[in-house]
């Protein structure tokens, strides 16, 4: 169970939070102007990278405030937490430790998966 540093309340256990999926997905300003496919993209499609992921969290059992985080989904390490009003941090700020799509070594198994 990871710790998440709520920008408003401090460090709390992840079970106090709800994940809101990918961050920076903006609701189309004029939905009617989109065709079915593009609208479908907005409703159903979200990025799902292994590695650096921009995501949203809400402190649902605390202050109920939404905020963004950058997390490495291959290690669950939180690289950065920022408020909704802050700028999206550039990807170059973070080091991707994955050398290949799955990032797993030739031998062994999950133990040796990914270096931090």
């Amino acid at each position, binding site marked *: 169970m990871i710790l998440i540093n709520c920008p*408003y*309340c*401090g*460090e*709390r*256990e992840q*079970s*106090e939070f709800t994940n809101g999926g990918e961050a920076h997905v903006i609701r189309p300003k004029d939905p009617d102007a989109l065709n079915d496919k593009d609208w479908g993209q907005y409703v159903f499609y979200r990025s799902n990278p292994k590695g650096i992921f921009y995501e949203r969290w809400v402190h649902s*059992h*605390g*202050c*109920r*405030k939404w905020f963004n985080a950058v997390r490495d989904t291959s290690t669950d390490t939180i690289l950065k937490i920022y408020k909704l009003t802050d700028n999206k941090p550039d990807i170059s700020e973070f080091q991707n430790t994955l050398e290949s799509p799955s990032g797993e070594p030739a031998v062994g198994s999950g133990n040796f998966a990914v270096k931090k």
Partner: protein
Amino acid sequence: MTTLISTDTVNIIQKNFQQILIRGDGKDQFNQIINKEISLQPPSKNLEIKISDKYIFAKNSFDQWTLVYLIEQNYKEIIKTISSLNSNDEILASDYSYGQVYFEVSGENKDEFLNKLTQFDLRNKKFPDLSMAQTLIARIDCYIYKLNNKYIITCNKSYEDYFKERLVDLINL
């Protein structure tokens, strides 16, 4: 006010209480309006508590404050305060009286006792005196206020029986 648990090391009392939940932007105008109504400046720092003999005034979230009445007021007065706060468009004040339950936890072992029900870090360096938090205790949403030698915990009234049972159960184990 009833004593729920009294041991050498942990004491818990319960009472009915009145409370207002206030939402707003926390800026100057907001502060003036509040100050006018209850002559107490709303705390500006997140999770900070201001206390007088009448109130606990806490900022419990980015744009949310709770005003806990320590002494029971004429309900009419509270309703009046609420409606004059609500006469401002940029404020939402909701009456939270009696819809919540209130427990005071004190005694030497209060931290250890509460940490049987919550993982919340109660240590002074993480949770200083005169601060509050919203967190899970016994798996339900609670507000917890830290005042010198005691904690005040409030939760929704519908959980009253459940919460009491969990507290008593632990004391007996």
